């Protein structure tokens, strides 16, 4: 039998009502204060809760109602299932989102192969300069990567608008922005409320591993982005086209950035392999791993 989003919403609501009558987990993360502010849970409320959850699993190991108890609580999984479903529902374009979700590893490989083919094709074209421009012209590179940069932005914007409408998001205050960014930079929601980390890969033992790995990926990405941005500025503003020497801004930013991202992703993948799959969204583990590998 196919599980529908409505089933997932019902299950998340059943569990949220139990949590709301207990409230012991109030200090763990952003999910609980938000949950406790409600008395009835619309599907939009539950979607928002699902997307606040970082799957740190602190609440699961602290819960007095997990199986074999008849209440059978597993909030991390209920919210993970719903979160995955919400991504499929809100992500644009939707058919691609579903495909990627269900069959992530295969799709990632397909994308990699596609890129390889693309590079081969480009390799067949004549190069025109030094460094990597010897392999691929500046024009061809911009032609490929500008859409690859802009399309995700468009996709994110459309998906976010849909999400905002469905969860009843209101106007944004500067304070809310500052808090959200502060929490994201520190990965506060993987800190377990006491700052000792989450319960992801070693049962009820707290660990900072997932938090650190996430931060490695994030800072790695930001460094890479800064590297590209600085290269763009050098190219267009200062008329200094690539290749850049090792002691230039793009390389100094890009090299550690790339290393951090790769290490972070491998770290996350190894943590995920050790974590109990029963506490996550089981249907899309493939997609999650694919995302990491990508």
């Amino acid at each position, binding site marked *: 039998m196919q599980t529908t989003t409505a089933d997932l919403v019902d299950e998340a609501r059943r569990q949220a*009502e*139990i949590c*709301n*009558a*207990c*409230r*012991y*987990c*109030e*200090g*763990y993360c952003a999910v609980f*204060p938000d949950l*406790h502010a409600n*008395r009835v849970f619309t599907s939009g409320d539950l979607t928002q809760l699902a997307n606040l959850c970082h799957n740190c699993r*602190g*609440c699961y*190991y*602290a*819960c*007095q*109602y*997990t*199986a*074999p*108890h*008849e*209440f059978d609580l597993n909030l991390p999984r209920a919210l993970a299932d719903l979160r995955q479903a919400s991504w499929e529902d809100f992500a644009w374009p939707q058919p691609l989102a579903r495909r990627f979700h269900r069959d992530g590893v295969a799709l990632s490989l397909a994308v990699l192969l596609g890129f390889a083919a693309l590079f081969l094709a480009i390799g067949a074209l004549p190069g025109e300069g030094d460094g990597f421009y010897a392999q691929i012209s500046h024009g061809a590179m911009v032609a490929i990567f500008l859409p690859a940069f802009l399309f995700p932005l468009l996709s994110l914007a459309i998906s976010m608008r849909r999400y905002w409408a469905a969860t009843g998001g209101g106007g944004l205050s500067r304070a809310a922005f500052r808090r959200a960014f502060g929490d994201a930079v520190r990965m506060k929601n993987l800190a377990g*409320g*006491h700052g*000792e980390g989450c319960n992801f890969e070693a049962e*009820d*033992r707290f660990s900072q591993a997932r938090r650190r790995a996430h931060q490695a990926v994030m800072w790695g990405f930001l460094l890479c982005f800064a590297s590209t941005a600085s290269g763009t500025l050098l190219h267009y503003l200062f008329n200094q086209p690539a290749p850049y020497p090792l002691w230039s801004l793009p390389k100094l930013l890009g090299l550690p950035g790339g290393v951090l991202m790769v290490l972070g992703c491998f770290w996350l993948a190894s943590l995920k392999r050790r974590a109990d799959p029963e506490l996550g969204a089981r249907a899309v583990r493939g997609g999650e791993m694919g995302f990491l590998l990508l």
Partner: protein
Amino acid sequence: MSEPDVLVIGGGNAALCAAMTAAEAGARVRILEAAPKAYRGGNSRHTRNFRCMHDGPLGPLIESYHEEENLSDLLKVTGGKTDEVLARMVIRASEACLPWMEARGVRFQPSLSGTLSLARTNAFFLGGGKSLVNAYYRTAESLGIETFYDAKVTHLEMSEARVTSVTYERHGASHQVTPKSVVVAAGGFQGDLDWLARAWGPAARNFLIRGTPYNRGEVLADLLDQGVEQVGDPTQCHAVAIDGRAPQFDGGIVTRLDCVPFSVVVNRDGARFYDEGEDVWPKRYAIWGRLVADQPDQVAYAIIDAKSLDLFMPSVFPPIKADTLEELATKLGLPVKRTCATIAAFNAACGDVSAFRPTELDGVTTTGLMPPKTNWARLITTPPFYGYSLRPGVTFTYLGLKVDARAQCSLGNQPVTNLWAAGETMAGSILGQGYLAGFGMTIGTVFGRIAGEEAAARANHHR
């Protein structure tokens, strides 16, 4: 496997405090926990805070909460039925316990929403009691303590006021162990409904047990049968009024109902029987278990109207809802005419409600009604109407082992040389009746530590 120096019977807060303390003092310690690992921790799994005296801000606790105030709070709920020497000792020791707990992995948080009135007196565990239990088991493991789950103790062999061996069943086989010291921290007997029925009468078969089904009092019965000194009235226990739809065992916190102060409570016959608005709920919840237990069929019904629905924490079970009182009475299985007459008489006795304040004693009272409702007496007139059934929910029984200030048990007038008790199994020494929120954990922690210290000292001495 070598024989342990100290054997701890039980796997909840008091047992773990004793085990950690003994191991830190250098003893080889084994824990025998009757429950499987998933249900380890006894009633401590369901707890959430620790009552703690403090002379200034301490950890999550604000302002101060002095010894005398703490003692007077205890005397109020127990009606003076307490051992004042032991009570004072527990209160004094509680202050040093809080940092001790933190050093062993317990994390506290500011008071939970809906319990702000306790911010000064009670320290809340981040994640609740099970996270405390998990932290202690992690610490126990790092101290080299052996924990056997599914290990049910059946007998303590005694000779000349000394425990000579302990028999337990595990995985279908019987085992015997001969430790130097034994700590009993195995809770009350509320999990054994037959025992409850013997103590209370047949009414006890209608009681719900809020916590673990594994506290069946086997060890307690075995020791009492051998003449170990007992304390406490077998009919006394910590019991609250909980949602009548709660499971027989282990329903825990989510089955509590906080609606009583805003409601009219009637019994099976549709009659009121007690002042619903006598005091704020945290000071009254512990007497309602008994009140409901004294009603026919051990059941009562709290009725509110739409005005009050959002004034209390939601229960895990949705209320029974109806557009008229007649319909509600029918749905609750109450005599319709009698119930409606009770509500009508209550409404007629309500007066000026302009002073209504849901979070404090507001003096909004009935006039000329018996029994009166002395606070929050508002008309029950705004549909839809809501009803909850109430049943007595037992947390733990007070009949237990009598201990001295060093947690030691006795036989006749002489101490049992190597037997100590901690936690609910001896809390009847201090809680003669009534209950003070968070004080069970205080007793367990203080006496657990003392028992562990004494047990290790004797074991080390006889090494």
